[in-house]
């Protein structure tokens, strides 16, 4: 006689289903990326995924954990995709592999594997690589370049010399550098008129990638894979601070629209800051976490040393998550008047 515990009915959900749906939600963004920026991103995703699975398998083997069960959970693949999307699309393959392996081995498995990592592994990969290989990590192709897929692959695999002409600055970087160098003499409107870099409301091409992430994020919200708290707080904080400064001086500070659809803002708001393992879990905690990410991302972008601040913002908030959670415990059923 068996003594399996209730409940005997279970909802048809699993970790791998959750992770698969996150990947599906990334598809619109990836499609826009491949179409408007460069199909090489697909190759990078494959490279990162393989590296992640291999690293994960190796670490599981060393620890004597069941391989099939954990490889199929999909968490390593999600990490890999986020890394590929966060890295420059023409980054050499070994850079993507280095970042991915570091994320899986150090940031995830050394902390105990699935569910145990205190930091977002993809953002650790980005942070480690941008500190260790700053030059390679800042080589983003200008959208107007129009390399063929074969040429893009040759660049990634190292068969074609990386020439400076290949890379331009990202829209965020270009804006920041120009404003800093211009020291007040250059205004935002003038910069945005450069159609090589900028499109309708943000970086040329990139703006639509961000729209793709937004759509995927809304779909996740609708599927209840994530709650509204983190994205709303993230976007709200980013809009609030960028809007305030833009109203104060529109010539020197770009509009909220520009900031929302540039860099990793949308990816961060819906896919990175919403990572449940390393983020906050209480409703109020999620609001603080999201707002903190949005705020810090803007400050690092505009006043800090890096063109985009989402990675560092998320990692810094990861540090605070346990304390935020502890301080924001919601009152329970029947104890609301006591708080």
């Amino acid at each position, binding site marked *: 006689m068996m*003594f399996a515990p209730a409940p*005997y*009915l279970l909802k048809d959900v699993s970790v791998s289903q959750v992770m698969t749906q996150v990947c599906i939600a990334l598809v619109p963004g990836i499609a826009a990326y491949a179409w408007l920026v460069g199909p090489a991103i697909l190759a990078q995703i494959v490279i990162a995924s393989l590296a992640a699975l291999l690293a994960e398998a190796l670490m599981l083997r060393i620890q004597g954990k069941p391989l099939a069960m954990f490889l199929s959970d999909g968490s390593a693949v999600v990490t890999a995709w986020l890394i590929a999307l966060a890295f420059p699309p023409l980054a050499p393959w070994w850079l993507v592999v280095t970042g991915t392996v570091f994320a899986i081995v150090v940031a995830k498995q050394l902390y105990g594997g699935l569910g145990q990592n205190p930091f977002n592994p993809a953002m650790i990969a980005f942070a480690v690589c941008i500190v260790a290989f700053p030059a390679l990590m800042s080589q983003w192709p200008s959208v107007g370049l129009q390399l063929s897929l074969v040429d893009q692959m040759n660049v990634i695999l190292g068969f074609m010399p990386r020439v400076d002409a290949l890379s331009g600055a990202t829209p965020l970087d270009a804006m920041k550098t120009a404003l800093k160098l211009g020291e007040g003499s250059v205004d935002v409107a003038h910069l945005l008129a450069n159609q090589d870099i900028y499109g309708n409301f943000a970086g040329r091409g990139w703006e639509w990638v961000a729209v793709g992430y937004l759509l995927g994020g809304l779909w996740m919200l609708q599927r209840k894979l994530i*709650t509204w708290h983190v994205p709303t707080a993230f976007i709200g904080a980013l809009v609030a601070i960028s809007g305030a400064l833009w109203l104060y001086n529109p010539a020197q500070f770009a509009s909220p629209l520009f900031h929302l659809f540039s860099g990793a803002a949308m990816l961060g708001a819906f896919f990175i800051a919403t990572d*449940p393992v390393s983020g906050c879990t209480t409703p109020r905690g999620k609001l603080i976490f999201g707002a903190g990410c949005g705020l810090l991302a803007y400050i690092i972008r505009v006043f800090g040393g890096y063109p985009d601040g989402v990675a560092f913002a998320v990692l810094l908030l990861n540090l605070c998550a346990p304390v935020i959670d502890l301080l924001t415990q919601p009152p329970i*059923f029947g104890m609301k008047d006591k708080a």
Partner: protein
Amino acid sequence: MLMNLFKFKGGVKPPTNKTQSVTLPIAQAPLPSRLVVPLHQSIGGVPQPVVQAGDKVLKGQLIGEADGWISAAVHAPTSGTVLEVAMHVQPHPSGLDAMCVVIEPDGKDEWIERQPFDYANAAPEAVREYLQQSGVVGLGGAVFPTHGKLTPSKTVPMEELVINGAECEPFITCDDLLMRERAEEVVRGIGIFRDLLQPKKVLIGIEDNKPEAAAAMRAAVDALGESFSVVPVPTLYPAGGAKQLIRVLTGKEVPASKRSTDLGVQCFNVATAYTAWRAIAHGEPVVSRLVTLSGNVHAPRNYEVLIGTPMGELLQLAQPHPDTDGIVMGGPMMGFLVPDANVPVVKATNCLIAHSDRIFPPKAPEMPCIRCGSCAQACPHELQPFEMYWFSRAKNFGKTQEYHIFDCIECGCCSFVCPSRIPLVQYFRFAKSEIWAREREKKAADTAKERFEFKQLREEREKAEKAEKLAKAAAAQAAKKAAEAAAAAAAENTDPAAATPPVAETAPSTDATPAVAVDAAQEAKKAAIAAAMARAKAQREAAQPKNTEVLSSAAQHDVADIEARRAAAHLTDPEPGTPPAPASEKAE
């Protein structure tokens, strides 16, 4: 009637699986070959058996007497012979045995003499006692003795009486069918509760997936001219939990630390109201109940079943499929697999589900928690199950209590939604039982310590008392002896200069001893010794020649010489009992 409903947070919507068992009316289950009636069928004291093997019993005859106020009587479910009063395995996940009365039916199903209880002219106290004697307990599953909940709070006015017809667990339809077919008796039973509690409002909550039951109840309420409100509540598990239903109907939240009476609400199951009415109006104690047979069976249906019917035998009525591999008692969310197919139906048995891997697929392996928060969103008590899980797992039970583990009602919503398939409720049960065990241990240790300290105290007191007694006795003895000695000395002593001083010295001290230090054994001993010494001295002096002081020095010298010789002779005299045997033994 329009009513403002409240919501409770969380909850889940498992497939209800209720339609299978409502197509046919309630049927009477046939008499089983044997009835095993557990004596402990309600929360509280274990009823004492009042029958023994060989006794003939009638249906409804008392077989177990309520033990204390929180306890309810148990009755013979049919007429027959008591085979034994013995331990039998219980429908409980533990699989432990408990005392049962085993009855072999005689097939006549002959009732005791039944008389209605004139409750209109009875004091509330008498009604409550009558219900206790009739074995009326909460039939929703918690089996709390009903009379215990029928006492209104003295300080808080009773606002709402909530009647629970929600029946939110999947598969279970016994309350549904009861309300459809016996609504009038249910409503009359509610009337009794209303009379005893005097609430301002009576609210009957029924999940909106049972429109027939709601309609039947509404019709019965109207027909009887009652002012009860029949309120459809949204179908959302666990809307049938007492606290959730109270929340939905009244907006009041009852925390774990409080009773609903403290908030002016009381809640009863519809089946409880029904049995209360049967007891009052027909003199029928609770000897049967409605049980849903469902799950992996050909013919799901509701049956009126005698308490004590073996579950395996009962389930045959529904024709279980061959791949049935167990019986779940209760619903799939909070029920449990019974340890043995022979366990009896008890008052808490609302549903039997034939278990098979087909309807309840085996759980996929447990994955690590990814803190997705689904459990927290599903928890109707707004707890943070993943935090409690984490600390339960780490055996950090203090932390689980900080996260309010004792507010968990074990509804299973968190386990239901967990994508990692972690059996969260199991972890919480584990943590709770560990905390209870530790508290019991601590209590036991505290009691032992108290007992030890008391024993020490008592021994010390006894010692002191004994010493005091001894001292008194010794002092009395010493005083007596000293007095004797003094008298003797006084009588023999002819030379006051020689004899009086010692006697004079000792006598006052011995005399004073009892008065000054009555309680000191030491003093008494000293006094006794002093008295003895005084006696010896007096004797010695009495035995000494009395003319030596006035002798000449030569005579004194002679006397001294004689004394010396005497002493030497005495010393050198070989002792009579010291032969040189040891030496010779050594030599050999």
